[in-house]
């Protein structure tokens, strides 16, 4: 199967997908209610889409194509309100967070859809282990080569995005010590990691053809890269974020990505080089493990600084673009939290070490997400 053509899309248009957890309000463990929730949502008039995911305890919501932060925030809020209403009727809780704190992966069920059964057969227990919840952000690109420039340029900001969204310190009932342990589940997949260093769509097509000839992949869906091109939408898709605990934070992170994209596309500040990727996995690990306190190694100067310092510096670089895009207010709030060292992982840890049991913690997560709290 060959790669489809890169569709045209409005530059810097924005779309957000959130994978969400469905939990029982009795024990706050994951519950297989996706089918029932989707049925309840089917006759509601909401923007975007609500779709099933790999296992029956998760759903994915997505906004339509937006042009700015306000649109994303509004659509996510409408989706949240509608989902909350449906969930109350079904006596289930919905929450954010990159992992469920104490679910037992072996108890998960694969959603009844051919693709999910195919993946489950192929990956075995990895598929059930993959009950993790991420935020994906699509950015519209004027053309395929620009998309690849954006993809490689954005790769430098992966640690920033991980630290800002990290919300998965707990896995299978234990503190992993990571701020985003979710990504460790993603790395288990053979086709995860980063896209190959190619700068033109022609080269990318050649790469895809070769991979396709090996029989390893059939479509772009088989790649679990941190950022991947999505030719049928004409976008690149950033996939490293944990689902934040509130839709407000999810919208702000999407706005941050859009501002970086505008900065990269208009100023073209980076000369891409394959060696940029020498520090990539180190930086990503540091952000997953330590969040804002992690070490960030600059790909060109090799200077070491903290992820927090690097995020602050990035805000200064993109400020003008954020103002142009109308999201400087949301980013200001995000920056304030970076300065205070606050993210969702910190919030979760604070409560659990303060004596709250993990089921109670999940209940508090539900209250935050369903109540529509600010970030």
């Amino acid at each position: 199967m060959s790669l489809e053509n890169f569709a045209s899309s409005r530059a810097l248009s924005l779309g957000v997908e959130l994978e969400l957890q469905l939990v029982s309000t009795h024990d706050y463990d994951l519950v297989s209610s996706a089918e029932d929730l989707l049925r309840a949502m089917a006759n509601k008039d909401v923007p975007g889409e609500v779709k099933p995911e790999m296992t029956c305890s998760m759903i994915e919501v997505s906004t339509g194509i937006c042009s700015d932060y306000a649109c994303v925030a509004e659509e996510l809020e409408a989706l949240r309100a509608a989902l909350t209403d449906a969930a109350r009727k079904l006596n289930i809780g919905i929450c954010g967070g990159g992992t469920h704190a104490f679910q037992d992966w072996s108890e998960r069920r694969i959603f009844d859809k051919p693709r999910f059964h195919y993946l489950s057969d192929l990956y075995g227990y990895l598929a059930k282990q993959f009950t993790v919840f991420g935020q994906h952000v699509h950015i519209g690109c004027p053309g395929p080569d620009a998309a690849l420039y954006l993809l490689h340029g954005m790769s430098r900001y992966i640690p920033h995005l991980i630290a800002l969204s990290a919300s998965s310190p707990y896995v299978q009932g234990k503190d992993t010590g990571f701020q985003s342990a979710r990504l460790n589940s993603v790395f288990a997949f053979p086709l995860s990691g980063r896209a190959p260093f190619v700068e033109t769509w022609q080269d990318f097509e050649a790469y895809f053809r070769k991979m396709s000839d090996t029989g390893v992949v059939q479509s772009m869906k088989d790649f679990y890269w941190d950022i991947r091109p999505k030719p049928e939408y004409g976008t690149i898709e950033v996939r490293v974020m944990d689902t934040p605990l509130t839709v407000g934070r999810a919208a702000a992170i999407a706005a941050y990505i859009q501002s970086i994209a505008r900065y990269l596309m208009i100023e073209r500040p980076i000369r891409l080089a394959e060696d940029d990727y020498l520090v990539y996995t180190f930086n990503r690990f540091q952000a997953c493990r330590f969040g804002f306190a992690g070490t960030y190694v600059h790909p060109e100067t090799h200077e070491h600084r903290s992820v927090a310092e690097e995020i602050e510096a990035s805000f200064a670089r993109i400020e003008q673009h954020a103002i142009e895009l109308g999201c400087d207010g949301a980013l200001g709030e995000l920056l304030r939290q970076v300065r205070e060292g606050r993210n969702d992982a910190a919030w979760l840890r604070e409560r659990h070490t303060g004596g709250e049991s993990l089921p109670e913690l999940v209940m508090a997560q539900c209250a935050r997400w369903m109540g529509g709290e600010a970030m």
Partner: protein
Amino acid sequence: MDLLIWPDWPLALGALFPVAIALVLTALIGEAGGRFDLPRVSGYALAGLVLGPLALGWFDTNDLAGNRLVIDFTIALVLFELGIRLDLRWLAANRWVVATSAGEMALTFALTFGALWAAGTGTGIALAVAAIAVGTSPVILMHVTNELRASGQTTDRLLALCALNVAVSVILLKLLVGALHGVHSGWQLALLHPLYLLLGSALAGAVIAAAYLGLRRLVDPATEQGLVAMIALLLAAIALLSALRLPTALAPLFAGALVKWRDRRPHLWPQQFGSFGGVLVIVAFMLAGAAVTAGELLAGAGVGLLAILARAAGKLGGAIAFGPPSGLDLRKSLALGVGLMPLSMLALLQAEDVRLLYPEFGSRLLPIVIAMTVVLGLLGPIATRRALIRVRETRRGEMS
């Protein structure tokens, strides 16, 4: 030589030894059922029947009366736990769940009464059996759902409907039987007695709930001390309820629901509480079989079977009619109706209590209820288990 230091021959083992053997047998039959993919409670119920007058005769109705407290306590414990799973906020948010419950109960009552009345049992018996048929066994439902670690829409509704069934069935039977026997001579009494039953149980439930929440602040329910405190609380509650002539089943159920209402946090039973409750359930089933004699079973078989069919039609019909608007698909609505089949100890005790008050009426009622609980105590759990597996709401056992 002092003869008292040497054992007598044959050994004088007293009453304890057969009880121990019976207990082990009950547990083993349950375990054997588990091996064949049957719910363990079906095995316990079977063991109870085998040990009772029906086959071996190790226990009889005197044992049942003498150990009534054990069974009452088991049911109270289970109902308290069931109450905690009944989230009143949910019932307020989704009125169709309440409608499902009301519809299913009304249909069950009407069909059972109609069938028995048409079969010529007399109005009184038909009404009493119909009231008991409204109920669903809380002990079996909790045991089967725990065994499968079931969770999901069908499971939530099964447990909610079971709680409501118990409450309505208990009150309904008291009222009907009272009315039939002229206890309520004069309209004042006819009005006061139901009020007393309801408000008294609600008030007692509120007191138990407040005590539970207070205790929870003092001791962690997950510790041994906490366990003892909770057991003591329920024992005190049963003593108080009996003294007040209030049904021992209602107040713990109300208390559980109030606890969940006041404190939304997950109220998870500590591990030991679960195993303690598990032992109690085995003992209770072992004893419950003592109520079943061959004569009564045969006498009640015909009408009992008729009542079972009518009840099944009512529960299934109600669930299928009202399940879909409450948010279930047809398959899960059907599973809900099937899952509500079990009827067991509580029904038996309800009938037994009627017999204690009105021996003549009770001795006509009891055989029918015995026949119903024998069939629905054995097959009901299997139906519930199959239904939950079918709608994929189990987290243990068959998975895909």
